[in-house]
């Protein structure tokens, strides 16, 4: 059994909570005491139906104001897969939460109300999903029951969205007509839409192929921690020196020739160690410990790669940055801390090339700063070299976060598009 992480985009009005509620309920991930609590609260509030959004709105302020503030993580499993849902709110702090939820997602579900069709909001969701390079996208056209399960309406929405998506380089795009309320095409195929030849949503989630979404080509091993037991009594451990980390790309095997950055020195992998014994190979997302044939001075923040396949060693990078801070704005000369893989450096904003309107995709080159929930293309200069790939090639070696040194808050997320 493997794991599929997916994000859901849409508002309560689109039936997102109902859809999640149905997936959880039909897969028995909602328990009787949780359902009773939700029923009790719905009753107390005078709501006529059981409000399933109360299951995901976990905080007091959310329940009091009837809004979703933050990303909530929900879990369910079928015999085929374990699922982690990043449920992102529809309105408040939208970009910030959606970017966060999408950063680790294998798949995103965008909900569209069949009566309303493709709205500005749907385009924004699709744009953010592709910006974050979520490999699989599902357009769930919901409330089909309210358009008489019309094939013509579904096709109309499909065509309109496909035309828009061609501008985004959306990768794998699947359209499913559903009714979350009645369960049509959610867990099982609907008899109300015999014209639909695809699978139900849950079947798609269970079967979509994600193993090849990881980068298994470019070997990238950011050194996270150096393990030195310093064991005086056990002679075999006395000189042990292992480089611990999580594989960010490629497949590593004992005997492979590897290069260390920043030194540029080459050596071979002596062994790949784990608590459970030596390993024949390591690949993402495994956390392992590597020993090398030669004694090289290696510390946290360094990178191990292959001599003929190296990341860019760069101090000047171009990136799409999503700004997440409330008070301060990002502008040329802003000084920030940048964390990329296991390396942290100080950075200064050299240039804001343009601000992107997430609804129209218009590039505003006259913009002089980015505010909360705005996205733009930025040039950054770092105090130390970073070992980077384009985000499109590897999300783990192409993504970084920005931290404000005065507040210590995480204020931005960056996706590298070019490096020098």
């Amino acid at each position, binding site marked *: 059994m493997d794991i599929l992480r997916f994000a859901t985009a849409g508002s309560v009005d689109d039936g997102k909570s109902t859809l999640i509620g149905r997936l959880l309920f039909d897969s028995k991930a909602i328990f009787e*005491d949780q359902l009773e609590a939700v029923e009790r609260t719905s009753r107390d509030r005078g709501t006529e139906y059981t409000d399933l959004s109360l299951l995901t709105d976990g905080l007091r302020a959310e329940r009091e104001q009837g809004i979703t503030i933050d990303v909530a993580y929900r879990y369910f499993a079928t015999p085929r897969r374990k699922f982690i849902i990043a449920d992102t709110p529809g309105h408040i702090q939208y970009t910030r939460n959606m970017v966060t939820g999408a950063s680790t997602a294998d798949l995103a579900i965008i909900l569209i109300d069949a009566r309303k069709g493709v709205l500005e909001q749907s385009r924004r969701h699709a744009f953010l999903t592709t910006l974050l390079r979520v490999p699989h996208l599902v357009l769930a056209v919901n409330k089909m029951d309210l358009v008489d399960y019309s094939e013509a309406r579904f096709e109309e929405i499909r065509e309109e969205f496909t035309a828009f998506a061609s501008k985004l380089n959306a990768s794998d795009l699947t359209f499913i007509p559903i009714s979350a309320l009645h369960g049509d095409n959610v867990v099982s195929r609907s008899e109300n839409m015999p014209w639909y030849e695809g699978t139900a949503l849950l079947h798609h989630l269970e079967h979509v192929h994600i193993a090849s979404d990881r980068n298994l080509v470019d070997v990238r091993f950011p050194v*996270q921690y150096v393990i030195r037991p310093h064991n005086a009594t056990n002679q075999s451990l006395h000189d042990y020196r292992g480089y611990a980390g999580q594989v960010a790309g490629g497949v590593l095997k004992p005997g492979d020739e590897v290069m260390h950055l920043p030194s540029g020195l080459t050596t071979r992998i002596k062994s790949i160690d784990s608590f459970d014994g030596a390993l024949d190979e390591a690949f993402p997302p495994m956390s392992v410990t590597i020993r090398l044939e030669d004694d090289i001075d290696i510390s946290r923040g360094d990178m191990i790669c292959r001599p003929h396949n190296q990341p860019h060693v760069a101090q000047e990078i171009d990136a799409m940055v999503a700004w997440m801070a409330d008070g301060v704005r990002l502008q040329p000369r802003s000084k920030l801390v940048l964390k990329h893989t296991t390396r942290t450096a100080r950075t200064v904003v050299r240039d804001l090339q343009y601000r992107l309107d997430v609804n129209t995709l218009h590039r505003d080159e006259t913009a002089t700063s980015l505010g909360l929930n705005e996205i733009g293309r930025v040039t950054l200069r770092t105090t130390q070299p970073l070992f980077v790939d384009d985000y499109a090639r590897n999300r783990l070696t192409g993504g970084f976060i920005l931290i404000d040194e005065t507040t210590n808050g995480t204020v931005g997320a960056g996706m590298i598009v070019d490096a020098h």
Partner: protein
Amino acid sequence: MLQRDYTTSQLDVLEAEAIHVMREVAAEFERPCLLFSGGKDSIVMLRVAEKAFWPAPIPFPLMHVDTGHNFPEVIDFRDRRVAELNARLVVASVQASIDAGRVMEETGRRASRNRLQTTTLLDAIEENEYDAVFGGARRDEEKARAKERVFSFRDDFGQWDPKNQRPELWNLYNTRIRKGEHIRVFPLSNWTELDIWYYIQREGIEIPSIYFAHTRKVFERDGMLLSDDEVVQRGDDEPIFEAVVRYRTVGDMTCTGAVASTATTVEQIIEEVAATRITERGATRADDRASEAAMEDRKKEGYF
């Protein structure tokens, strides 16, 4: 030739993520510690810590907030495990906080030291100058926890502000704090109760005996079976009887209920947990039943 698929099982993915989190803490903080109660989640967390730094020993101490109302079987287990690992255990005692006048013992039938633990925990964090504290909490446990970060910032009063959390992207964690502040770190955030049991099964990890079905003297309160013990205030209208039970969670004797069960092996527990229709905290924890936001309110104060 068939190409390998490189599919990774859910337990391997969860373990790799938790190991990554632990190494990140060891690399970026000065004084981390790991909360170890002898409960199943912290037992799993301890195994992950062992794996993360092997063949070196775990590079931080363990801490237990001891209410004095723990199950003796669990305390025995805790001490045995600590000795096996040759780890350092710091015991923060709620009784000592009461004796020092830091907190007041609750009175009455429902008296519990559950809430008092927060003061003891925060005092111990301050005294030992811990800057990162590992906890075994999982997001599937409770709805306030579903919204908490893996690296959860606490101000210098130990408080959690759910409306002002740091965004968490990819596998990049912001570890920056000022002196006096700390981060609660939850490496098992994405595990479910069943994942924990599958992992215990796969790894062959020992757990305290009270997780398995046994005969115990209990009495019923609010639909829960509480253990008969001198620390539990029992009314005359709450008769004692013998029942075959096991514990699904392990907390204080005063507020942790047993469930009727005949499961005597991990396999049988997995079958039981997979079939149950009640959440673990709903079935067994009086402390969470106080109100809709009982956990959120305690967490804001600095609870686990």
